[in-house]
């Protein structure tokens, strides 16, 4: 178990290193005229050269990379070219917004998917149709269309929740919930489509296995067979799907934040990219990959714990 964790952590570190290195060399090597963008079209070549020197952009690219990497190891992601704010603190400020939406969405997704997946594996019939319906809707209407429709119906027309903005959870729980529930639902629809289908499929596989028949032959109740035995054995593959889905949700949250005007990662990354704010762009990609690594590690650990063959040895 211990070597298993070490191995996964090692793989995660490699992934972070590779992705940030690629991003660094692609963005810094692309010749984006950063100083020109900051100073505007009327800047003289002297001004541009002096700003480049200030930002360290005149140094060889490898030197720039290692100085950036050195900073990262000390938790310093550099400063924004445009606002001079520390990237680390900007990201930490925006973290609660994106995480609120993604986590609420995950909770909805997991609960609904397990209920729907288990029920339709056990009963089939109209529940299968509901599941197919959700999947079809999520494929046909991209997140942006669903998001706008929900805003229009629930925020603009019915006025149940505010259309835009974020309320921190410390300020008012109801306000916070109202501000994240619609974006969370938009993300959850796509998640439910894939996770519920996965749960249904694995549950059907498990329910047709020999051990289920043996349990039945000893008079074990259907409820226990479904919710204890089959679900427990189906949990592993479902968790793996969940980790992939989490990454997809995090990506889609960038779109959804824009619709609901949430000051999260998406708007930060968007501004950074539009402006060509290289340290901010790198910060966003480093942070996203780091998040993916953490989620995958947690899911791997949970999978290891679920599987007695890994846990006991």
């Amino acid at each position, binding site marked *: 178990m211990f070597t298993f964790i070490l191995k996964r952590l090692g793989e995660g570190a490699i992934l972070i290193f590779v992705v940030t290195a690629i991003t660094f060399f692609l*963005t810094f090597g692309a010749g984006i005229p950063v100083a020109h963008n900051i100073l505007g079209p009327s800047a003289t070549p002297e001004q541009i050269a002096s700003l480049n020197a200030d930002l360290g952009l005149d140094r060889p690219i490898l030197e720039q990379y290692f100085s950036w990497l050195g900073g990262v190891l000390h938790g310093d992601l550099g400063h924004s070219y445009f606002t001079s704010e520390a990237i680390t603190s900007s990201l930490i400020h925006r973290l609660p917004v994106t995480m609120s939406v993604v986590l609420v969405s995950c909770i909805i997704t997991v609960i609904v998917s397990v209920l729907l997946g288990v029920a339709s594996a056990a009963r089939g019939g109209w529940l299968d149709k509901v599941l197919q319906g959700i999947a079809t809707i999520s494929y046909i209407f991209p997140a942006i269309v669903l998001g*706008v429709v929900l*805003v229009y119906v629930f925020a603009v027309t019915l006025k149940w929740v505010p259309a835009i903005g974020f309320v921190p959870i410390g300020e008012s729980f109801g306000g916070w919930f109202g501000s994240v529930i619609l974006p969370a639902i938009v993300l959850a629809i796509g998640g439910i489509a894939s996770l519920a289908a996965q749960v249904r499929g694995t549950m059907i596989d498990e329910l047709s296995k020999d051990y289920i*028949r*043996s349990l039945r032959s000893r*008079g074990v109740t259907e409820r226990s067979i479904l919710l204890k035995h089959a679900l427990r054995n189906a949990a592993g593959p479902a968790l793996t799907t969940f980790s992939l889905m989490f990454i997809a949700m995090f990506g889609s949250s960038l779109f959804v934040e824009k619709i609901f005007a949430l000051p999260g990662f998406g708007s930060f990354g968007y501004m950074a990219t539009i402006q060509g704010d290289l340290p901010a762009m790198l910060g966003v990609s480093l942070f996203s990959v780091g998040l993916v690594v953490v989620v995958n590690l947690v899911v791997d650990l949970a999978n290891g714990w679920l599987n007695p063959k890994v846990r*006991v040895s």
Partner: protein
Amino acid sequence: MTVNEVTQPLEVSAQEMKKRAGAMKRLLRNPLGLSSVIIMLALVLLGLLEPVLSNHDPLFASLQHINAPAGTDGWLLGGDQFGRDIWARVLTSINVSLISAVIGAGVGLVFGSIFGLIAGYAGGRADAVLSWIFNLLMTFPSLVLVMVLAPVIGSTYQGMMAIFGLFLAPGIFRLVRNLVQGVRNELYVDAARVAGLSTRRILSRHVLYVVRGPVVISTVFLASTAIGVQSGLAFLGFGSTQTPSFGSMTGDAFANIYTEPMQFVWPSLFLALLSGSLILFGNAYRDALAGPQTVAAKKKHRREAPHEAVTRYEPDGAVGGGLLKLRNLRVSYPQPDGSEKNVVEGLSLDIHPGEIVGLVGESGSGKTQTAFSILGLLPKEARVAADEMRLAGDSLIGVSQTQMRKLRGGVISYIPQEPMSNLDPSFTVGSQLMEGLTKAMSKAEAKQTILALLERVGIADPARTFNSYPHQISGGMAQRVLIAGAVASRPKLLIADEPTTALDVTVQAEILDLLRELQGELGMGVLLVTHNFGVVADLCDRVVVMRNGHLVEEGGVREIFHHPSQEYTQELINSILDEDTVRMDPPVVVAAQAGGKE
């Protein structure tokens, strides 16, 4: 390798080809499939004819037509908040979406299938490395990276889709790799290789053929994903403002949604039509590939299999003192073509208390189906009917699942054939054995009962086995565990389905001894399902011989052994005698024979 064996794969391919051709026909006959194709073609046509169908350049802004309503002269869908022609922009957006789909799905398809073919066909180290890389690629936060890298590739939607396509590749990679691996292991590729076909020909002829259908379906879904992502990126404002697209249109319309909600509806509608037709096409193609049976199978699908009484059974006077009484049992399964396949046809059977009855027949004779129908454990789609089916005098016909469950935890129990797969891998042996007992007694009592039983069935360290997971115990131990579980409720009738077939020869004898001892102690009636007359001779009082769902003959073991009335029974008996002959041969001769065979 004979000529016949080599030509066989070609016949298979010909059949496959016919199936594929049929799939296209079925797809077009399916109303959803046909309409998806029509909508898709219509949209492609609209996009291609954009210069002819629209009166204005999609970028041209007319101040007179700001927020013009739909149907204004020459402005079919009206103007947006900048006075641009919505119809012209919708048509251009169709093209942008289609190009995005082709680039995104195309890059994913090419990368995924090339490396998937290599990994699946080469196997070994190449497979391990490629699988590792693609697994990593799958976990990348693709949207964030596409966003961050957008300025590098000049922020065109084509460039962004090319990058995004790389992140779509792992899905295709895994699909192709698994399919190719499956095909590679199949006999006919071996046959083709021996026949001297080059690797390239094997790949193109056999492998690509099998892979094609699933890959087409996945690619269609990837195309729809690419369209969604492109529109999302454009909605955010990525890509050139000079390129109209559904994303930028919905983005503009969203800013204007308080005043002109209809401006949002048009791009959404066409976007939904485009992705919707792709998805419906994918689904319809999948159904069509699955063959014609799915529709019929769905119609015939049954969820419950209660014991059905077809004819009236006799009043209680006919019960007698039997433990199990079975009259005219029939088990059938609905077939794809609507007919019924009978697996048990009119079997009658009696078991008296304390009697061991062997149910003998080769595989497919219906003996296991008979056993499961008594237990009420047949799959849901099975149809069971009998004139009479009584356990200890109580009719089992029309009994609810709940009542059946009470019987199973009590008077009737079951020992399976394959011990390892019959234990839930996620729970300890003890916890799963206790589960059936805890409704009758406390947890502590149940634990004591199970521990005592584990000792009784010959497990050396009951406490340790109790806390073990199934993967930690041997097959023989697992079978002892399952026997302990089966007798825990002190059943009156024990149904053992080939209880020794999956075990080592030495363990087989021990398990049979154990069964005999337990039967004596508990006075159970036993239905022993087996194909082995040796086991019957060892254990049974009476024997029932089945073939193709029918009863062949029945009688006392001695009687049947010495005077089988049917030739089939004699064959079954002979087969066990042959085994004995082999076993009695001196080892040297056996070795020589084995050597001679090779």
